[in-house]
């Protein structure tokens, strides 16, 4: 077990046994099913997820918005929201390849939303933010102990909304309104249209639109989630799952006992952990180089290094 995959207690390839969730999910429906199970069994009483405009229209009280005019919210722009039911979870399922500041809702979830046991899903950097908020709760009064299940998702990098807009509308020549699903896999950025059309872009095209802040990130597989998951390493329609913390271990065992997931040993599936390890190392090596480059960025002047 190398450091690039973080600490974990177990790793499997998994898929939800709920056929309805599979219709909406990005891959194996892990996040949606886990939160659904945790809501049903009282492990959490609400979860912070990335919803969208349609969700907001139906559930305006469950989101916090920024200062934008609500009418101006674009398709495929994520809106952090608190969900309490399976139907709400399904409405928010699937990956949106741009930034959803889920941690912004973490305190309010315990206040206006009244949650005592919060579920939160997020990228590796957001899991880092959650754990920093628990250890150094400078502005998170009475929040840390209420985080009941933090699910991390694998992440190579994220895009600003305008980056996705340019990729889909300029490069893939599709209206964002007409897009059913986006996906990164097999070395390509895939855009699936609602009419059945599929466009793929080489990843090379996407690089310039990446969020620059992602280029100092040294975590690929959400080392700090209680459970972390992503498609890489597992066959199509399945997800790779790392069970990391004591909380994660306990929740995963209960979910397995309740038949929420079917699993295969990660050693038995293709491409398996070998690919996860390879991509994790690629990300970490590349971004360590970025950090080194920042140290000698100017003439005798460095850019700031956030890591102590």
């Amino acid at each position: 077990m190398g450091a690039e995959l973080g600490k974990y207690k177990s790793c499997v390839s998994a898929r939800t046994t709920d056929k309805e969730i599979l219709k909406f999910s990005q891959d194996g429906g892990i996040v949606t099913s886990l939160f659904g199970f945790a809501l049903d069994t009282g492990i959490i009483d609400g979860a912070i997820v990335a919803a969208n405009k349609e969700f907001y229209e139906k559930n305006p009280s469950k989101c916090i918005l920024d200062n934008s005019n609500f009418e101006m919210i674009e398709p495929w722009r994520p809106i952090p929201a608190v969900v309490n039911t399976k139907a709400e979870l399904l409405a928010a399922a699937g990956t949106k390849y741009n930034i959803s500041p889920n941690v912004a809702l973490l305190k309010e979830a315990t206040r206006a939303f009244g949650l005592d046991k919060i579920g939160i899903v997020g990228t590796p950097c957001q899991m880092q933010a959650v754990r920093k908020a628990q250890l150094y709760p400078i502005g998170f009064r009475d929040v840390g102990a209420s985080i009941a299940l933090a699910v991390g998702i694998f992440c190579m990098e994220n895009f600003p909304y305008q980056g996705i807009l340019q990729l889909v509308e300029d490069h893939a020549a599709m209206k964002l309104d007409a897009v059913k699903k986006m996906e990164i896999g097999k070395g390509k950025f895939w855009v699936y249209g609602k009419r059945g059309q599929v466009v793929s872009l080489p990843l090379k095209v996407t690089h310039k639109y990446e969020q620059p802040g992602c280029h100092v990130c040294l975590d690929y597989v959400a080392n700090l989630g209680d459970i972390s998951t992503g498609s890489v390493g597992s066959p199509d329609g399945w997800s790779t799952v790392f069970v990391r913390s004591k909380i994660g271990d306990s929740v995963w065992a209960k979910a397995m006992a309740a038949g929420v997931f079917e699993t295969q040993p990660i050693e038995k599936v293709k491409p398996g952990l070998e690919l996860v390890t390879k991509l994790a190392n690629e990300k970490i090596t590349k971004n360590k180089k970025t950090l080194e480059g920042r140290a000698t960025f100017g003439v005798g002047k460095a850019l700031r290094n956030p890591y102590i």
Partner: protein
Amino acid sequence: MADKITVGYTHLSGCTGCTVALADNYGGLLTLLDKYVDLKYMPTLADARHIQKVDVSFVEGSVCINDKLAVEEIKETREKSAVVVALGGCACYGNITRFGRGGQQNQPQHEAYLPIGDLIKVDVYIPGCAPTPQMIRNVAVMAYLLLKGTKEQKDLATKFLTPLMKATETTSACFCDLMVKVINQSLCMGCGSCAAACPVNAITMEYGKPQGERDLCIKCGACYNQCPRAWYSFDVVDNYEAINEAIMAALQ
């Protein structure tokens, strides 16, 4: 008990919110006082008020430099304490007292307020307005381990406290820190920690980046210090589970 550390609490120009936050540890505060801390002086929670020689002193509030007594007290606090902790936004950064301009009865000449780091050397910051009970608790346990723990515990406490020691290099704070030290440095990844941490809801997330309503900002420094891209220690945060457990065990 012989292995308790001695602690004092100096109260300058602060609103007592930091004191209340400390007290809001409820049973945890009693455990701290039972097992780890001998509280030598504190204006609100103890009978003794005069500054004495202690291992650690917490200072709430900024220093009014037009108030001779306040200036004497902060200097005396420094002279008599091995470790000085600036507790809360005012002691660390001036916070809301930065907006002071005098003219208030019955001491209209009290116009200028400075964070304590502008007058004395400070060892550790606990930012936040108010600082949270859990942050005070975590730092208190770690400070105890640093002074009285085993070698392993001292190492852990040093790592935990290092960012809060380094924070003392700066004595002013503002939402602008997020712009200048995070966004302008191309480090922001849009997690939203700052927006959640802001005590006056001055920050919203616009297209995944913080937008500050700068007229609302009280200059407490919570947003910047909460930001994982302001400072972040893998040594500490990667071991969050063990550290959380150790802190909870210490307070049993």
